[in-house]
């Protein structure tokens, strides 16, 4: 099992990177009233055919030659189901893949989201220049992180330039703290 949901996100997004997506969108929605947490990952990669899709959450389907799916999805599904949640995948060839996992927010077996900023920075550093859009909603509050906007500001300065990754991490951490803090007002 992965100890943090943000590790699952990192893992699942590697599939999108391998599927040659150009944009990976990650939507997190926490709703305390509905006691629900959902994590949705949408890519515009090459997608999967129905045959592959039907085996995706079977842990024994993992073969070295078709490494676009593997143990990752089954582990993610287990984490969701451990909290009475679900995991659903939709995929269309040449269109992309959508994965949505839901969790019970107050379930004792819910893994913490963990260091989402580490996950996002590592994803942003992918060498295919795939963009990452991250949206995190906590009840009415929302935080967004979009590498397309960051690229625009940075012009031709790469993400690896001195100070950029540090800025990203602090920006994400502060943004997430803010959306969770407002609630106590």
């Amino acid at each position, binding site marked *: 099992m992965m100890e943090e949901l943000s590790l699952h996100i990192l893992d699942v997004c590697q599939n999108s990177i391998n599927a040659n997506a150009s944009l990976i969108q990650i939507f997190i929605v926490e709703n305390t009233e509905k006691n629900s947490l959902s994590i949705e990952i949408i890519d515009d990669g090459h997608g999967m055919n129905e045959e592959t899709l039907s085996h995706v959450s079977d842990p024994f389907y993992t073969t070295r030659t078709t490494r676009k799916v593997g143990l990752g999805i089954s582990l993610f599904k287990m984490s969701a189901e451990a909290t009475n949640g679900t995991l659903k995948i939709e995929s269309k060839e040449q269109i992309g893949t959508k994965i949505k996992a839901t969790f019970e927010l107050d379930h004792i077996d819910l893994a913490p989201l963990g260091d989402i900023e580490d996950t996002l920075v590592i994803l942003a550093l992918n060498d295919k220049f795939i963009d990452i859009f991250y949206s995190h909603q906590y009840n009415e509050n929302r935080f967004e992180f979009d590498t397309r906007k960051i690229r625009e500001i940075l012009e031709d300065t790469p993400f690896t*330039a001195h100070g950029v990754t540090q800025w990203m991490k602090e920006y994400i951490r502060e943004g997430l703290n803010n959306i969770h803090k407002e609630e106590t007002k």
Partner: protein
Amino acid sequence: MKSLDDLKKIRDNAQKKVTMRGKNDGIRVLVGMATCGISAGARPVMNRFVEIVDKQDLENVTITPVGCIGECAIEPIVEVLIDDKRTTYCKVDVDGVDRIIKEHIIGGKVVDDYVIGKYRI
């Protein structure tokens, strides 16, 4: 509070520096970031690389997450590419990252304790 203006300052500083920089001798660090790697602790390993390289401003070093190379049992695996020389490290932890940066990337000497040959013939 970090703002987009801070990011613009970072960009301006980086752009100033580029003009002063000499040739880029490019060291690449690849970190295995598939399910096996992540479960074994590849994220804190990569994170450490990113942090130190940023902090020490090792501008010729690029760190990239990569897929599984098929040695899942000895993850986290890190490959260091300098010129045409490839060194594969396995079971790397945060201390290992510090040593690889200090002794190999800066010092030029392979860190034998983490080299893959120790675990696999």
